[in-house]
Each structure stands twice: as C-alpha cells, then as structure tokens.
C-alpha cells in the first residue's frame, strides 16, 4: 500500500543493499529517470507507453529524488492509481529509490498529445487512433444530434467510412465502431 499522498520515500521503499543494489546502480548508469518513466506502458493500453499517450508530463531529478508529473485522461480513470504505482515501481527497479508522482489537472489531457509513434502502435494493435480533437468556437458547447460524419478508417482493411456502434466502449477513452466492408467491429480512441 502506498501512503495516501502518493509519495514513496527511501524509508518506505526499504531497498536493501546487496545484489539488488548493484543491479540498481547498473541500471541507473544505463538509463536516466526520464528514460525509465517514459518506458512504462499504460495498464489499459499496454501496447503504448505513458509518454506516447501524453499522460507523462514531466520527469525531474532533484535533490529530494525524482519527481514525475502525470495528467489523468478522464476524471474517473481507474487506472490512475495503477499508473502511479507502476511508475514508482519502475523507478525503484531502475535505481531511483526516492521518487514521487504528482497529478496535474490543467491543462486537461487531450488526445492531440498522443504521439505519432503511439498512434502507429494503436493502429497496429487494431485500435483506431483519434483524429484531431474538436476545436471549439466561443459560446456554448454545441450539441450535435444524429450521426457523426467524421471519416474514421477501419484499422483492419482501411475502408475509409465506418459506423459507430456505441459511444462508450470498454474504457472511458474508447468507442466501439464497425466496418461495413470487412464487417469487423473495432475500437476507436475518442477525440477529446
């Protein structure tokens, strides 16, 4: 169990010297804290890293240890605690015993932060990556009734026009679609 404030200190981590310590120093020589954090994958989308998803905002090495900043994709994302724990564990294994993870709420996460490499990996795994996030004009958020007409291509056969089956998929960030050509359903990361 992590303390309530998400901080893990050297005393809490209880890293014993010895073989693990040697391995840890070797790892520290080979990878920076930023590299270790950037390699951690997302618990729900394990084909992409937190860095590729744009969840990892900053990694800083200070006198007090490593400070990692992450931002939630959705307010209720149940993976945030897992992500925090995964980061602390990876850093510990990488030789960074003192590390903390802080949450940053603003600016709110947008799918525009998913990198080109992340998009390619999602597509390769059969998950259609998001298009550009909607741009808002001034005034109230417009309500769109009826079918959305954005061309979202099938990640399997490339058919450019597919249809939405459900706006809410297996996780908050995905919707379910169907391809009229190859008849296969697929998931699409919603543009937000």
């Amino acid at each position: 169990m992590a303390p309530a404030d998400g901080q893990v200190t050297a005393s809490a981590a209880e890293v014993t010297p010895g073989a693990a310590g040697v391995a840890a120093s070797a790892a520290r020589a080979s990878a920076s804290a930023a590299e270790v954090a950037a390699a951690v994958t997302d618990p729900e989308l394990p084909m992409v890293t937190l860095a590729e998803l744009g969840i990892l905002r900053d990694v800083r090495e200070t006198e007090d240890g490593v400070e990692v900043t992450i931002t939630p994709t959705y307010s209720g994302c149940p993976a945030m605690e897992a992500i925090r724990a995964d980061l602390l564990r990876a850093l510990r294994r990488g030789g960074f015993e003192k590390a903390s993870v802080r949450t940053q709420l603003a600016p709110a996460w947008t799918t525009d932060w998913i990198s080109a490499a992340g998009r390619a990996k999602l597509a390769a795994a059969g998950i259609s990556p998001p298009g550009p996030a909607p741009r808002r004009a001034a005034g109230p958020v417009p309500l769109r009734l009826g079918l959305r007409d954005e061309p979202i291509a099938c990640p399997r056969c490339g058919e450019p026009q597919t249809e939405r089956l459900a706006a809410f998929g297996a996780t908050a960030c995905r919707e379910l679609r169907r391809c009229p050509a190859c008849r296969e359903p697929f998931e699409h990361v919603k543009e937000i």
Partner: protein
Amino acid sequence: MSFDDAYQALTDHDDDARWAYGTGFADPLAGVPTELPEGVDAADLAAYCLMLGDDALILSHRLQQWVTRAPELEDEMAIANIALDLLGQARLLLTRAGEAEGAGRGEDDLAYLREAAEFRHVRLVERQDEHFGHLIARLLVFSVWRLALLDRLSASRDPVLAAIGAKGVKEVAYHREYAAGWAVRLGDGTPLSHERMQAGLDAVWPLIGELFEPHEVEQRLPGVAIDRASLRSEFDAVIAQVLEAATLDRPTSAPSSERGHGPELAEILAEMQGLARATPGGVW
C-alpha cells in the same frame, strides 16, 4: 512495472493499485497545489465543492444501480462509463472540499461517513428511475445543466475548480450527447416509446426549479462559484433543440425550487455507506 497482459498484473502480489473503499489509495489531487484563492472564505468554498461533488456522487450511484438492468450491453457500458466519469468528478471535488474545510476529512470520510442532512446535492439526482424513459430524461436535464455549469466553472478564480470544470466539460459533452440521442430515438420512435419518454420528462420537470434558483453559497463566492441563474438561457436553448427533434412537448408543470432531501436519500446512503460504516478505516 508493466505486464505483458492484464491477467499477469492481477496475480502480482504488490499490484493492488485500484481505487475502491479499503484499498488505501486516496487523494486524486496528490501534488495539486492546495492553497485557496485570496479573499475566499474557506467554509464557503468547502460547501460549494460539496454541492458540485454531491450532485456527481449521488447521480453516479443512481446510474450504477442500472448496471445489469440496462436494455442492451452497449447502454450498460454507456451508463457505467457515465457513472465512472461522475464518480471521478466527485472524488476531485470532495477532496478539494476536505482541503478547504481543513478538518482532516478526505474524500472517503465525506462520501461514506456524512449523515443525510449534510449532503448538498439537488433533488433531481436523488430520485429513483421508474423506467428507461425516466433515466434518459433525468440524464438529459442533468447533463445539459452541468455542462453549462462546468463550462463557466473553467474560468473560476479557484484554479482547482477551474481545472475540474475544464476537464469535466469534455466528459459531460459525451453524456449529454448520449442522453439527447436516446431522447430523440424514443420521442420520435413508436407511440409507446414516445409516451414513456414524455412521461420521464414530465416526472423530472418539477425538480428543475432548484437548478436555477440563486444559492446563497454561490453568491458569497463571486468569481469562484457560478451563479446558477445564469445557466437558464443555455439550458432552455439546448432542451428546446432536443425536444423539437424528439417531437416531445415541454412539460407545463410549474418547476419547484424547493430544496432538501427525501426518504430516497436514506436508501441510497444505506447502500453506498454500508461497507464503510461496518468497517471504519478498513484497509485490505
């Protein structure tokens, strides 16, 4: 560390990082600066965060009661996802309320150990749905109202409320689209679906008065809180757009601005708080 597959993660002995009561994981605002904006009364800010947080928390619970009862799997997923978004908003707001209050209460204390009389949500979120038409009508009215509110909140002088507002807008826009889509499908569907959708709207309509009646806590927090009376014109315009497409009539009943809670809240709290009250501070 990350795992090759989710099943491997489930069997890892120290992978207990899923939030639920008793897991010990708390504070969704970890690392977010906690200072209050200048000139703001901390008790008022705490009360306001509870108002916004309780609306989300209680409606989330009502939506969760639909899980395993929705008409189709896709709607089950949608309702559960909407409930999850609202629960996430509630966690942030209750945590902020606890910080402003300064009495050492966290999100779990506020959600699970408060008495019914201390809850500050609007009556709309509390009522029991009789059928799917009621669910959609309530979700439509709530999400149209809350989207207008969160959008304005994103310019709040309190940076935490502003961030919660900006993030919530993206989520509630999807909730509103879902509810509006079903309202049109049912309203402009068969005679029976039209009748049920209209009945749902008629049932929730008397409760909307409270959504726009100026509130003393909001008035004591200028620049931080949103004056709910200012939401009325956007609400009316969006509802009119949906009702027209859905061939539904705007209910004629007089909205009541009465506040307070009914016996239904006791049922909700008995279910929601039972585990936490039976095992105070329990961690496993």
